[in-house]
Structure formats: structure tokens, C-alpha cells
């Protein structure tokens, strides 16, 4: 009984939930107006794109990989859509091409990583520069805007009181959650993260799964890029600049081990929530952008230290 209690307590999810509750308690003391639904809903608008990318990123980190190129894939996809639109193609076609481009970018990452056995950090570091460079090259760094209303509504309209992007996120989350927890593929992902040689020797299609995950990551980034473009009505080569660090921070705060094999999607969601609320509140309350950087940096370190301590406690008792 005590062991189960301790085990639950030491789960990163529990710890994060406590942290989030504390944060909300603190907020309600300092500035209750922040907690109004209206405020929360409206502030949530720019977390969804990050959240969508965080799902494949969680799976990739679970396989002991990493994808630094997500921001650049966003940029490349946004520019693809933008340039095609500018060239006179219809918007659905442009969106389709953007999704295809992102998916292809992710596939190339996966291909290099799985087939050539190069460390994901290295490959995606290289493609990070390449993809954004291509986006800058073909767009000559010029922004494209003036998208048709039917398209921008995707980014700005709400459905059942939540932004469209939120629904996209929920749909992806639920389907991936089902696959990870109810299909063999889920365990395969964890096995690869723990020992890819042993997984390979057990007949798991390690290569195919890795290629699949990176491709999925590319697709999700492209989707996020389209939502972003729709929301901001602009496609530019700097779309998604630096988003990879935000995504990785959320995933890692969510208790996913950077060495692979340990962590959950729920943890990632809690991590996203914690980061988002902290960031928005610091900015809401203190009006000092530089504080956000310090708070987020420390939050990342402190929460991982605590998770580590809790796990240690559980193991030794």
C-alpha cells in the first residue's frame, strides 16, 4: 500500500499536477483576474501549434532521438503554402503541398537517421539549417500575406468556444494516445528507446518505426505551420524560429527522459500546461519579458531535479 502510494507520488505526472495546482493557488492570491475563463481561453491561442508538435516530439524522445528541425520544417511548409498561393494556386492545393513538403522533410530526417545510423541530434542540426535556408532562399526572405478569409478563419475562428487548432490537437492527441497505449507499436517505441539493438534483434521494425515517427513529426510541424499562418495571416521564413527549444522544454518538464524509454504523453501535456501558464502569468503580472526567460530556465532545471529526487526516493525505499 505504502509502496503504491510512494510510486504514485513519484510519478512525474503527480509531481507536475501538484506544481500546477500550487501555481494556480499562487495566481489566485496574486492576480485572480488571470484565472477568468475568458482570459485563459484567449491566451491559449498560441500554445496549440507548439502542443501539436510536442506529440511527435514526445514519441521521438521516447525512442532516444530528438528532432531539432521542427521549427525549420514549419518555416519551409509555411513558405511553400505562401509561395504557391502567391503564384496563384488555390488555397487547398497550397495547403496540401505544404503538408507534403513538411512530411517529406520529416521523412528525410527519418531516412538519414534510420538508414544511415547517424545520431538524430546531428542530422536534425544539419537539416535545421538546410530547411530554413531553403525557405529563405525561395521566398527571398519576403513575407506573404493577404490569404483568403476562408483560410485565415481556420486560425482565428472558434468552434465550441475553443480555437480550431485546439481541436486539431485533441484529435491527434487522442489517436496517438490510443496507439501508444493500446497497440503493440506503443511498446515497440518504448523498447527502441531502451535498447534499439535488442529491439532490432527481436524483429521490431526499428527503421520503419523511426522513419514513421520523424515523418509524423514533419507532418505535424507542417500542420502547425498552416495553423500559424492562418492565425497570423502571414507566411515568412522566420516562422517557427526557436520553437524546437520550447517544445523540447515542455516534453522534458513533462517527465520524458531525454535518454529515451521513459515518459508519457500525459506528462507532456502537463508540461505544456505548466510552461504555458507560467509564461503567460509572469508576463501578465510583471510585464517584464526578461523575467520569463529566467523563470522558464529555472523551472526546467528545478522540476527535473525534483523529479529525479522523487524517483530516487522511490527506488531506495
Amino acid at each position, binding site marked *: 500500500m505504502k509502496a503504491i502510494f510512494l510510486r504514485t507520488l513519484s510519478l512525474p505526472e503527480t509531481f507536475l499536477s501538484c506544481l500546477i495546482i500550487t501555481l494556480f493557488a499562487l495566481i489566485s492570491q496574486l492576480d485572480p483576474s488571470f484565472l477568468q475563463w475568458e482570459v485563459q481561453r484567449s491566451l491559449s491561442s498560441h500554445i496549440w501549434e507548439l502542443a501539436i508538435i510536442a506529440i511527435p516530439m514526445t514519441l521521438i524522445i521516447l525512442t532516444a532521438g530528438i528532432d531539432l528541425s521542427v521549427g525549420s520544417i514549419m518555416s519551409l511548409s509555411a513558405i511553400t503554402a505562401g509561395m504557391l498561393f502567391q503564384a496563384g494556386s488555390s488555397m487547398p492545393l497550397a495547403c496540401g503541398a505544404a503538408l507534403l513538403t513538411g512530411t517529406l522533410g520529416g521523412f528525410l530526417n527519418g531516412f538519414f537517421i534510420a538508414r544511415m545510423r547517424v545520431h538524430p541530434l546531428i542530422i536534425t542540426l544539419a537539416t535545421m539549417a538546410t530547411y530554413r535556408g531553403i525557405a529563405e532562399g525561395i521566398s527571398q526572405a519576403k513575407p506573404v500575406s493577404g490569404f483568403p478569409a476562408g483560410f485565415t478563419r481556420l486560425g482565428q475562428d472558434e468552434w465550441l468556444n475553443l480555437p480550431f487548432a485546439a481541436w486539431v490537437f485533441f484529435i491527434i492527441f487522442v489517436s496517438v494516445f490510443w496507439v501508444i497505449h*493500446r497497440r503493440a507499436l506503443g511498446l515497440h517505441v*518504448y*523498447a527502441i528507446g531502451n*535498447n534499439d539493438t*535488442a529491439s532490432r534483434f*527481436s524483429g521490431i521494425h526499428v527503421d520503419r518505426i523511426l522513419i514513421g515517427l520523424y515523418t509524423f513529426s514533419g507532418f505535424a510541424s507542417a500542420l502547425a505551420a498552416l495553423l500559424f499562418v492562418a492565425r497570423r495571416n502571414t507566411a515568412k521564413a522566420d516562422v517557427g524560429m526557436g520553437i524546437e527549444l520550447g517544445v523540447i522544454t515542455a516534453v522534458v518538464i513533462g517527465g520524458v527522459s531525454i535518454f529515451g*524509454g521513459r515518459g508519457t504523453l500525459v506528462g507532456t501535456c502537463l508540461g505544456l500546461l505548466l510552461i504555458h501558464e507560467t509564461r503567460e502569468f509572469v508576463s501578465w503580472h510583471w510585464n517584464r519579458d526578461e523575467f520569463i526567460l529566467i523563470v522558464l530556465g529555472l523551472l526546467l532545471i528545478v522540476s527535473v531535479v525534483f523529479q529525479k529526487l522523487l524517483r530516487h526516493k522511490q527506488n531506495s525505499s
Partner: protein
Amino acid sequence: MPSLTTQNLSKSYGGTHALKNVSLKIHAGDIHALCGENGAGKSTLIKILSGVETPDQGLVQWNGNHLSLGKVHEMESKGIVAVHQEPVVFPDLNIVDNLYAGRELSSGMGTWLNTASMKQRTRDILDSLGEDLPLNQPVGEMALAQRQMVSIARALFNQCRILILDEPTASLTTRESDALFKTVISLKNQGVGILYVSHRLEEVFQLAQCISVLRDGILVSTQSSNDLSEDALIQQMVGRKVAYPSRQQPVNADITKNKPVLELKALSRTPAYDDIHLKIHAGEILGMSGLVGAGRSEIARAIFGIDEFDTGEILFNGKKLQNHSIRKAIDLGIAMVPEDRQRQGLALPLSVETNLLLPSLNAFQGMTGLDRSQMRSMSGQLISKLGIKTGSPDNPASALSGGNQQKIVLGKWIHQNPSLFILDEPTRGVDVGAKSEVHRMIIELAKQGSAVLLISSELPEILSLSDRILVIAKGHVSGELAREEANQEKLLKLSLPEEAKQSP
């Protein structure tokens, strides 16, 4: 006479008591063997003695002085050094750096290394072990046995007073083992005390003056080896009698008339192996013997679709395999137990159950998802069938002892009824009881009609199980012996590279 004594050492991991009140005395100039089943606590005791782990309770004394525990340096400075069960090497470093890591020869207050003298001494040590290894090659590129030799050399080279060897011969062939025994005996004659752990009982009787037995973390007995028979020892270790299974029936004439399950035709990959021909029939156990690095594992890897080969062909049930891959091999009914269980066999942090069911997870997948209860019952069956010692199927595989881990690697294939089973050193580090279980399982598999390719460096194992034995030397087939004509001498003779050149 100086001695190392332990008093009431206890250590538990979570709920498991790995050691309970163990009091042991090791004399200088003695070879003291430590026996016990897998998971009995031998490695735990050794980890404590070498300062890697701190006991929950108990003392360790050296010549009557208390030692502070939990510090490797402290122990090494007293001359107590250990060779651990899994070879402990730095894969990216060369042999010299491996041997000297942590105790480099330097001058000027550690600001200037004496590279030349380190090289010279390394060469001396290797010579004394009869090894001729390249000094500049990263150790990670060497075969498992060579890595094992490096970690033994590392221990030897200390001016040690007590040398602890945890299953040092588990991945060595006879030649290396013999060189090691010579060294061990000469050290003993120089007054070094040796604690020797091994599951190969013939070695234990050959070397040790004194034998202690651990069972479930408790020290059962310490006796002189002269007073002990092998059967009695086994009985103490296991708590029951163990019968050695072996294939009693002569080669079944029918077997070779069966269609061959696997046939290799002129399989080559430079420089690992060249022009390999072999046939395995359903129900047959084909032994593959040879020295370390002869290329046996490489052949096995090619059959299982891990590596590609240069020329030649693999026929499975008469059909040529094209675009071979591991998954294809598994789907055809080929299974393989790899030689390095930690690197190739197990996802250590994952549960015993997941590891056992890893190759067959797709089979438990229904419309609604994975059938957890069916998985649980299957893993339960396997655990009891193989006698895997674990508190629960949910425990991580890393918490099991070496032998029990090996059983998992075997177990994940057994329920799939493979038509060809490749076993690469299947009983490395497995205790006598479990080993006889594994042997029985292999025979059982063959009886049910599976073809078995058994690679083993342990000659008795090969001799007692195989129907036919193929000897590999330097990547060539140097001979094939039928069961009746095979014996240790012949196998050894064929294994030596000189013979390989002369044979047609």
C-alpha cells in the same frame, strides 16, 4: 596468514534480499571458489568486496583492519581487485588506456604521462596471458572474449593481494581459459588470495582448494574441495539433485534424410568467413565449435538477417532467401539468441513481461488494443516454465541476475515454435540447474522438429547436445564430426588455425 574476512554482510535491493549475514574468509595463497545458482548473490558479494556497492549491514576486514566500504579506490589501494561479470571496458579507448584508466603512470604531480612505459607494461601483461592483441585498436571493436581478456588483464596488472574473478571464463574458449588458469595458479603461488566464481564446476574442482556455496543470499557452506563431490556441490547449490540431460539416442538416420531446413552455399563475407557450406535438418542439433573470433557469430548473424554477406546463398526450406532481414527471418520461423544479452538481447529497463513478449506483441493486438490479460497469462507461463526468478513480471529486466536474464532471452522465442533456432552461447553465465533446464529445452525443441544451430565455446555442452559438429577456424569450415567420433581433443585440434590451412 593475511586474509580478507567479511562479517554478517547483508544487502537488499527493494524487496529482494541479495545477501543475508554472509561471513566469509579468504586466505592469501588460496583459491577460494564461490558457487551458487543464478541470483544467489555472488555478484553482489563481489560488488561489495570491490567497493562498487555499499552493504546495508556488516563489515569487511583485511588482516584484522576494518575497511571503509563503498570506495573502489580504497579497495584497490589495499590490493583487492575484481573482474566483474560483464566485461568492463572502455570501448573507444585502446588497450593501454583501458588498462591504465584511473591509475595512469605520470610524473610531475600528474601533469605528464609516461606513455612509453605504460605501453611496455601493457605488452608484458598481455604476453603473460598469451594474448597478442593490437595495442592501438579501440577495444570496442574487439570480440566479446577479447574484451573479457582486457578486463582480466586490467585486474592482473595491479599488484593485487586479493583477486576476485566473477565468471571470467564465461565467454572464453579453452585456449584462453587455460592461459588464464596458468596465470591464476602462478598468482596463487606468489601468495595472492583468489575468489573465483564460476558456473563451470569442472573448473572449480580443478582450481579451488576451498568452495563456498551461496543459496538465496545465505552462505550455505564452506568446505575443502577434496571433501566435496560434484554431485554434493550441486545438491548444496540447488537444494536438489540435477541430472545432466544429453542426447542419448544415436543419430537418427531419418533426420539427415529429412529435407534440410537451412542450407548455406558458399557463404562468404571478407574477412569474417569464407566459403561456408552447411545443412541443418529438421530435428537436428548442429553444433558449431571454434576458437574465439573464428567467425561463428558472424555466420549466425548472416542467417538471421542482421548483416549482409558478400557472396553465396542461404536456402531456407529449399528456397533461396532474397532481401533478407531480421523480420523476414522471424516470419519464416527463425529465432536467434544473441551472444551479448545485455547489448543485443534485452531492453533492460523494461519489464520482464515486455521483454519476453517483445517479438510477438503483434499477436496480442486485437481490435480494441492489446490484450493485457492474455499477455499476463502467457508471460506467467513462460516464467514458470523457464524458472525465471523474479518477484513479478512487471519488474525491470535489469533487476534480475545474469542467468535469469539469459532465460528471458531464450524464453522470448520458445513459445513461437521456431523451425530454426540459432543459439549463440546460450548458457553463458547460466548456473548448473538452469543450464540443465536450457539443455532440456534445446533437446525438447529438436524433438518437436525444430532445427537447432548451437554455437558454444564450452566443449562439453557441444559434445553432449549435438548430432553433428562443425568446426570453424579462421572463418573456414575446418572439419565436420559426427556425434560418435567427436571428442574434446579432435575438436581442439580442428579449431587451431594451423589445421585450418591443411584441411581440404
